């Protein structure tokens, strides 16, 4: 009889402990979401332990992908060879034209000072070694950390445009929040000189591949196809990085503002290599303007 009572008491304690844990974790979600609970040391420790394995598996994945692509290429090589031979002649002619364009392009680049614009950033190349399984959050893990000079809030880009920013720099890996994440907000401008309308690009849970540019006044002249660049407001993202272009414009529910659906220039589904902006400086004046002033 006493055994039964002892067992019941023990079971009651277990249930109480279980309920306590469940309630604590439930509350923790809301504390963490409002930034009142953080576990940076645990974050870094887990990242440090997992990163070598993630690096290795990611490397194996890359190699497997390379092998399957190669095998697939070999299977189609005969057919491709015939097509390619006919294209060679055509391409030779085009190549001459392309060389002309290249030379022209180089001249234009020098003229517009594109090169000088590029040197305002110190870039640290990084490889994507992990990403979340679902679309609740848009987060990636890259193989660069504080040991490589990476710190929180550094902007991450590719040659195509803005990717996101570092939210948690570990020792040799960093967690990057993509601009597709619903919690991300990027201060942006319409690049068109006649417009220059400012807005905020934020992730859209309902369309995880296309963020939205919000807070656009209803009477502004934003049009479909407008290119969006970072405004530099807020201090995280340097000014002038391409984000994407407006694909569609919709009215906000309130009726006072409108928002644009943004087609990003970066293909986030095929994100493999990125660069982290470790330092950005004020861009030197463009050579064209200098020449005009003289």
């Amino acid at each position, binding site marked *: 009889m006493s055994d039964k009572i002892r067992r019941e008491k023990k079971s009651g304690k277990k249930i109480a402990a279980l309920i306590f844990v469940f309630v604590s974790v439930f509350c923790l979600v809301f504390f963490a979401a409002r930034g009142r609970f953080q576990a940076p040391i645990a974050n870094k420790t887990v990242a440090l332990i997992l990163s070598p394995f993630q690096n290795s598996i990611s490397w194996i994945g890359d190699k497997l992908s390379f092998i399957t692509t190669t095998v697939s290429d070999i299977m189609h090589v005969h057919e491709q060879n015939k097509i390619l031979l006919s294209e060679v002649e055509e391409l030779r002619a085009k190549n001459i034209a392309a060389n002309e364009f290249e030379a022209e392009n180089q001249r234009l680049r020098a003229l517009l000072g594109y090169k000088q614009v590029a040197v305002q950033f110190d870039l640290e190349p990084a490889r994507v070694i992990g990403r979340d*399984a679902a679309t609740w959050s848009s987060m990636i893990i890259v193989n660069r950390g504080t040991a490589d000079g990476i710190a929180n809030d550094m902007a991450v880009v590719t040659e195509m445009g803005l990717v996101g920013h570092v939210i948690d720099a570990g020792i040799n890996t960093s967690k990057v929040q993509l601009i597709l994440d619903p919690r991300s907000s990027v201060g942006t401008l319409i690049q068109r000189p006649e417009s220059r309308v400012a807005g905020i690009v934020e992730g859209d849970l309902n369309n995880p591949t296309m963020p939205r540019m919000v807070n656009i006044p209803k009477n502004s002249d934003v049009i479909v196809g407008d290119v969006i660049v970072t405004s530099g407001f807020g201090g995280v993202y340097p000014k002038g990085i391409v984000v994407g272009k407006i694909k569609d414009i919709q009215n906000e529910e309130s009726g006072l503002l409108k928002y644009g659906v943004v087609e990003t220039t970066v293909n986030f589904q095929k994100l493999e290599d990125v660069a982290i902006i470790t330092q950005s400086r004020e861009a030197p004046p463009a050579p064209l303007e200098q020449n005009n002033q003289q």
Partner: protein
Amino acid sequence: MKIFSVWAILTLGLYVLQTSFLPMFSYNGVSVNLMLLLTVSIAFLKGHHWGVFVGFAVGVLHDLTTGAFFGCNIFIYMSLGFLCGKFSDHIFKEQFILPVFSSLLTTTFYYFMMTAFLHMLDYKLNLQWSLQYTLIPMLCYQFLFAYPIHKLVFEVNKRFKK
């Protein structure tokens, strides 16, 4: 101690696979959630005590690395570990049909719990769009991987059972 090490290595291995390799085969950003399958399988085979414990450990790992809101995955995995573990005494451990088909139910549970958390945190979600482009791919992936993962957990459990 040995048995804990075995489960820890298995969990870490599957997690690394889930975050590094399997996203290569993702559809619209959705890929398989091996941690969910692992928690459910262990709960079915070892009961609700283990289910809750593994759910907690796996949830912490997920939330610390790639989770959206700290605690969400811990809560959901623990709940699933507890609920599935309660069935542990009523199923034949050698029968794989229930655990494999239950992956559909547990994934739906995971999806709706996560949606509920997002709503409670004031994130708006178009449910129709999300059901089509998130839940359906999730169910397909989970169902595809449910048998191999359960088989793996079953074999490990059989081999290292005290």
